[in-house]
């Protein structure tokens, strides 16, 4: 039963979307796996780079003052403009898609980490310095643990961007992935399949977020404690 007169070609019923998932399940799964692969690789590399760059920026004030404006400027370039250029420069392979995911997810991670590094209480730092700790010891024993909450906040923000950026990169040009599946379905006027793929992409993002939350909980027993009783 349909409640409106809107054509299913424009807005398919939820039952049509579910049916699309059932009928095209294998195909969508294959494309989803490709998307997960690119997103995971790009996101993993992005987080690793962000950790390395944030540590370098933390220790080198001059570098921080020079690099931060460039990082901010990199975020003003729209992904719509970047995605086709990446395909143009690097072809239809893995590289342009991974680069795009890194470009999109790197900035929130670095900013979150840098903010977290700034949260270490002066008293903690003073305590360690008075004990003879050098800058690296202070970073490892106080700064890094103090930045943990910010690290996971950045991770959650970046994770939501990772799947979206991958799909957009695939949309600009790919052989496999939810992006190219959505584009093909749209060209065939199959709004039901477009929405089926969108539902799967949302599910992927939620799964990634749940995974991050799980890791945070599993590893964070001692970090959920407050300074004072």
């Amino acid at each position: 039963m349909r409640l409106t007169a809107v054509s299913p070609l424009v807005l398919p019923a939820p039952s049509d979307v579910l049916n699309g998932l059932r009928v095209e399940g294998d195909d969508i799964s294959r494309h989803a796996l490709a998307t997960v692969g690119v997103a995971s690789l790009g996101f993993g590399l992005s987080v690793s780079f962000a950790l390395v760059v944030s540590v370098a920026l933390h220790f080198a004030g001059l570098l921080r003052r020079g690099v931060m404006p460039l990082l901010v400027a990199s975020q003003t370039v729209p992904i719509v403009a970047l995605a086709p250029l990446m395909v143009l420069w690097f072809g239809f392979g893995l590289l342009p898609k991974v680069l795009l995911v890194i470009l999109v997810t790197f900035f929130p991670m670095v900013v979150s980490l840098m903010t977290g590094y700034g949260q270490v209480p002066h008293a903690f730092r003073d305590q360690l310095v008075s004990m003879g700790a050098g800058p690296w010891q202070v970073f490892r024993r106080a700064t890094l643990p103090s930045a943990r909450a910010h690290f996971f906040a950045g991770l959650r923000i970046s994770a939501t961007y990772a799947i979206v950026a991958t799909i957009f990169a695939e949309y600009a040009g790919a052989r496999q992935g939810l992006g190219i599946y959505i584009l093909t379905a749209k060209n065939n006027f199959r709004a039901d399949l477009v929405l089926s793929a969108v539902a799967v992409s949302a599910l992927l993002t939620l799964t990634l977020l749940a995974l991050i939350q799980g890791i945070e909980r599993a590893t964070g027993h001692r970090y959920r404690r407050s300074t004072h009783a």
Partner: protein
Amino acid sequence: MLEVTDLTIRSSSGTVLIEDLSFDLVTGRLTCLIGPSGCGKSSVLKWLAGVLSGELRVAGQARLHGAEMSLPHPAIAYQPQQDTLFPWLTILENASLGLEIRRTGRSIARDRVRALFPTFGLEGHERSFPDQLSGGMRQRAAFLRTMVQKSCVLLLDEPFSALDAVTRLMMQGWLTGRLAEDPRSVLMVTHDLFEATQIADRVLVMAADPGRIVSDISITTPRADRTEVSLAETRLSLRSMLLENT
């Protein structure tokens, strides 16, 4: 013996914050530093601990047994005003932190610290986290971390300020007891005249603008005999001095 001579601290704009401060700390004696807010008491401790802000310009010398020393120095242990037990570390991990930083092996450091838990009234709390302990116990854990470093000079910045009155009295007694068993040179900042006269062997009174020592009072009355009556005159004299220099 630790000697501080001609300590002058200026702000980056050149304002003199502390001027020509000189004093010494004798082993086994507890010296309290009192004075109005902003006179630079904590800055003196931070300088000796090697954690004074790099923006300040400092002149002056610290000598240990006659030899000039660079700061921070292993002979000096510092306990800041705030509770600096790391919330993500257990009490055992917190207490052994100083030793581990000074390159004592982790297991050796922890064994050494664990052995002192009963002395500091912390037995059974090795694996507890700071937020599971009372204020007094956290303070004892902080003292354990400071004292286990075997530094001959302890700098304590208002160690009891966050404690309730009863715990504060108990901790004052506990600290003097510990120091009687394990003598160190102690420089302790406090705002509390009663506390200063109750536990100190000597009280240095500072005045502000610029920070300087205006009086050096030795308290010779044995701690066991210190009462409201026996110390009334000393407290009145200290109070007048503080009021005159505020």
